[in-house]
Structure formats: C-alpha cells, structure tokens
C-alpha cells in the first residue's frame, strides 16, 4: 500500500481537503465568488465528520464565530474574497490580540470595491499584511498550484496551532478554479496548541518564540480573554504604556522570531541566474513556463514565494547577488516589488511587471518578452 494517493481537484477543493486533513472541524462563512466552492465542500463534509458548519449572516459574524469556536477548542477556518476579507479585518485584529488560532483564506479577485467578482487578481497582498489597525503581524502564505493549496492549508492550520495565531492563506481565482493532480499523503502532521500545565498565565510567555498556553473554556480556568491591552492574566490596562509595549512586542516577536520555520519557497537556479523572477500565486506558473521559452537565450532564475509574510529574505538576497536584473510580475500595480527592491539593496536592478483587470493572466510569452526587453 502506498502512503500517497492521487486526486484530481480544483485549487478550492484541494484547499478545503488540506484543511480537513489538518483537523479543521469548524467552518463559518458567507458565500462570495470565487471562494464559494470551499464553503460548499465544507458544508458537505463537516457534518459527516462530526464537525460544525454554519453559514453566517455576514463575514464579520463568520470570523467572530471562529474566534468563539477556537476558544471552545475547535480548529476553525473560513474562506472569502476581497470584499469579505475587508470586513474580516476587524476580527483578525481581535484574533491577533487574543492569540486565537484560526485560518482565513482569501481567494483574491479584482478590486477595489466590488471590482470584478469572478476574475483573478493579486491586489490583497498588502491588505493581508497591514489590513488591521495597530502594530501586528499575521503569517501569510500563498499557493501556486492545487498541490500547494492542499499542502499549505495543512501548514497554515498547523502554524495557527503552534504559534497560537490567526493565519492567512492568499489564493487567487485562477488557482481556485484550475483542476490539477494532487498527491495526498494518507497521514499528515496535526499540530495541537499548547495547554496550560497547572496555573500558567494564558497571555504571558518567558520564551518570546513560544506562545502562551491556551486554556479550554468550561474547565474551571475562569479565563479572562479581551481584545484590549492586557497583562499575562488577561486583566485590561487601558492606559499603562509598559503593559501595552510588552504585549505588542511579544505578539510581534512570537511570529517574527519564527520566520525561518515559516519560510516556504521554491528556488530554481538562483545562483546561475542572469535575470531573476520573483513570483507568487498563479503568476509563478507563468514564470516557470517563461523560463522554458527563454532556454538558450537568457539564464533565468526563479524564486517562487509561498510565504509572503514574514518574507523569506535570504533567497531574495541570493538571487540579487547572482542576477543583474530581477523582474517581479504581479497581478496588481506592484505590491511585492517594494520589498524585493528593499531586500535586493541595490545588488540587482528590480523591475515591476504589472497587469490588472479581467482576470487575464500574465502569459508566459509576454513575461518572456519582458525578460528579453529588460535584459536588452
């Protein structure tokens, strides 16, 4: 018996299946194109597996249901797209502050506003990073294939549990509705959040890399959870500067100091590259195809980022040391390109390549053309 099986799934189905494999047992959501197949899959599967599914009255309710469920010991998730993701920022901020593990999937579509509902885009990268008010950090992952959708859903759920944090998975409409073969492991890792051993503070940790233990409700802990500034026991401090500083620094460091463990990327011939391409999401597929087109003309190195925050900086530096030019193709007006330019630090010339609207992909041919153009 093989420990792997092959499936034929769309990105959305692969994502839902990955979440289920990681132990997601609670889903609350609101229908929105192009994410709805994830929700529909959960509506079919969760009741059969003893989980909970509820269609909420809106995206705000969805994410707060996740927060409540997570404290009641669920592994919760929801999926949405741009307009719903905007509404969920409120709950994501509370989830950061209360250190509540949960997974939010944003299947990106064209914005701003209601934009173009059924068309792919990558315009939510910086919203995923900075959408909440205040100082905060949430890990962000981005698949670039149906296989990634499955694998990264597992990684995202486990990250949420290990670091006691909300996690964001950024997919896009092209991935969501592309059907591909997916290799499925029969046994996948399932991380469990740390529980208090005796009387441990639920919001304090000696080791900045380690989240505090999370008590279950209903077990006599009298746990005091608040979205406001609080001390290690959950008591609110509405004006004390030191309590606030200690809290936001710890919440930031809990993620930042673990960035090596969170870094997922695929590197193709970085050391030999004359021109580098840094890409994520469905655009990464065009980058791989463009590299083939350019074979024998220009040596192209490709860095596919699957962790978008905190960014894996070392492979970008490595690419910048080898390549003279780095091209950053994105289905937005340029969001990742700022970081690549900062990290490259002048070692390579960083050039954006933007395309928005209508969900029209960045085609391999036009990307190859652009490489030749910048290479001269």
């Amino acid at each position, binding site marked *: 018996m093989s420990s792997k099986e092959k499936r034929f799934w769309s990105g959305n189905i692969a994502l839902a299946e990955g979440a289920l494999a990681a132990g997601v047992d609670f889903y609350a959501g609101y229908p929105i194109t192009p994410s709805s197949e994830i929700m529909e899959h959960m509506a079919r599967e969760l009741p059969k597996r003893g989980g909970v599914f509820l269609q909420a009255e809106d995206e705000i*309710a969805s994410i707060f249901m996740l927060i409540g469920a997570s404290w009641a010991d*669920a592994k919760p998730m929801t999926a949405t797209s741009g307009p719903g993701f905007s509404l969920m920022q409120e709950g994501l901020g509370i989830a950061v502050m209360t250190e509540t593990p949960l997974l939010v999937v944003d299947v990106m579509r064209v914005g701003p506003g209601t934009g173009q509902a059924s068309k792919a885009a990558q315009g939510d990268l910086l919203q995923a990073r900075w959408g909440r008010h205040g100082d905060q950090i949430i890990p962000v992952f981005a698949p670039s294939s149906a296989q990634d959708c499955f694998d990264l859903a597992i990684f995202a759920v486990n990250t949420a549990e290990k670091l006691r944090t909300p996690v964001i998975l950024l997919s896009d409409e092209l991935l969501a509705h592309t059907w591909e073969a997916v290799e499925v492991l029969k046994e996948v890792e399932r991380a469990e959040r740390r529980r208090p051993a005796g009387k441990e503070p639920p919001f304090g940790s000696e080791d900045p890399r380690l989240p505090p233990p999370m008590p279950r409700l209903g077990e006599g802990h*009298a746990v005091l959870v608040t979205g406001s500034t609080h001390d290690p026991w959950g008591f609110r401090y509405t004006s004390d500067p030191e309590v606030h500083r200690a809290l936001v620094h710890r919440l930031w460091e809990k993620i930042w100091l673990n960035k090596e463990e969170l870094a997922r990327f695929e590197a193709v011939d970085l050391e030999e590259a004359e021109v580098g391409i840094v890409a994520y999401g469905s655009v990464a597929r065009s980058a791989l195809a463009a590299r083939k087109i350019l074979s024998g003309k220009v040596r192209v190195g490709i860095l596919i980022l699957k962790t978008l925050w905190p960014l894996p900086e070392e492979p970008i530096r490595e690419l910048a040391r080898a390549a003279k030019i780095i091209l950053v193709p994105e289905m937005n007006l340029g969001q990742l390109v700022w970081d690549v330019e900062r990290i490259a630090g002048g070692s390579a010339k960083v050039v954006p390549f933007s395309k928005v609207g209508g969900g029209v992909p960045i085609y391999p041919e036009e990307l190859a053309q652009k490489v030749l153009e910048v290479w001269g």
Partner: protein
Amino acid sequence: MKGHPLHKYFRALPTAFCPGCGNGLVAGAILRALEKAGTDFQKTVFVSGIGCAAWIPSPHFLADSLHVAHGRAIPTALGVKLRRPELTVIVVGGDGDLAGIGGNHLLHAARRNADLLVVMVNNLVYAMTGGQVGPTTPKDLPTPTTPYGNPERPLDVARVVAAAGANYVARWTTAHLGELEKALVKALKKEGFRFVEVVSQCPARVGGRLAMTPVEAMRWLRARAKVVGQAGPEDLEVGEFANRENPGLLQALKGVGRG
C-alpha cells in the same frame, strides 16, 4: 463586600461603574438568577463586546469570559455554543452594542433561535463614549450628537427580537429587580434564543442632562412602566413579549448530514 452572598462570583472589585449606575443591579440579578436556576458557574461562559454593560462580566465575574469587539459578542458566543453545546453561554451588552452596531447579528441569532441568553442593558445612549444618541434614544432627547434633540424614532428592540423568532423575550427595568430575576431564571431554563432587556438609569450621561438623581430615575422607570397589554403609547412597556417552546438551533442542526 467580603460578607456579601455574591462576593464569591467576583474576580475584580470594586467595579469600574459610575456611582448610581444600574449595571451593579443587573450584575446582581444575573448572578442570583444563575444560583436559582442551578446553573454551574464553572460551565458558564460570558461574552461581551464594547460598552459600559460589556464590563459587567469582564473583568468582574470569576468565570470564563470573552470580551471582544463592539457589536460582535453574539457571533462569538454562538461560535462557543456550537462547539461546546454543554456550556451555558450568556451575552451581556448595551443597546448600542447589541441593537446598533451588532443589530444584524441580534436579528439573525433570534431568527436561528440560537441557544444563547442575551441580556441587553438599555441605558438609552452610547454612554461610554459620552452619551451620544443611539438606536433606543427617545425622540427629542438632546445628546452630544443631537444637540437640538433626537429627530429619530427609537427601536423597540424586544418586540423586534420577538418578531424575529426568539423563544423568550422579556423587558424589565432596574426598578423591577424581582421580575427581572424571575425572567432570567425562566430564560436560563429554556433552549433557543432568549433575550432579556433591562432599561437602566445612566446618571452620568442621561440623568445629568435631565437633572435626575439615580433614585429619581428609578422612580421614573417604576412609574412609567406598564405591563404588556396595559401600556399606552407614552408608557414603557414591560413584561414578556415571547415565551415559546420551538426547537433551538442546536436541535435543528442535530442529524444534519447524518442520514
């Protein structure tokens, strides 16, 4: 305070409430009702949003409590209840929190007959932020954001929740503590969505404007309150607005996808 029969239920005292505030009376009524209904305090989860009434359980009650964003206590509470049906889940909040910014959640929780008890302390304004007009503010009342008097009509929250399908809806005031306690005990023993509104005095934000002491405000509430069926258009209608035995949401979800 140490000798008080309810002292054991408190984590933090004294409370943060203004002198003469009705929140202490509501806190007492909730705790006495839990005792009378025989509810296990260790298996009770309090959920609240933002506002003065949201502070009643958090940080004061020595029980599990979730204090979340303004208006979002009900969906948070429902998340808890769906995952841990054996726990008693109680939302405490104000009128602005639950019927203003959280109004959509309130409506749908009632429609779903979600198995929650919601206690809404109605002090007629957004008290924590300075007493601005809210969805329950009486017409013509001046507030900091309606300096010329409130031009709008208030929402009859209890009647709306009853119309949306809640199993139990009652309204009393801080001047009807016996009736309030009985309503809470009754609500605790039922399934489905249960909503108890408590009209309360706010000496800091309303009483001051009307030149009423807390005692005068409570006398006013007592005098203006008339039970359902006997209340005229100018009266404050109190009593039960719904008392049904419909299956709650958890009951409705049982068996879904399993046959």
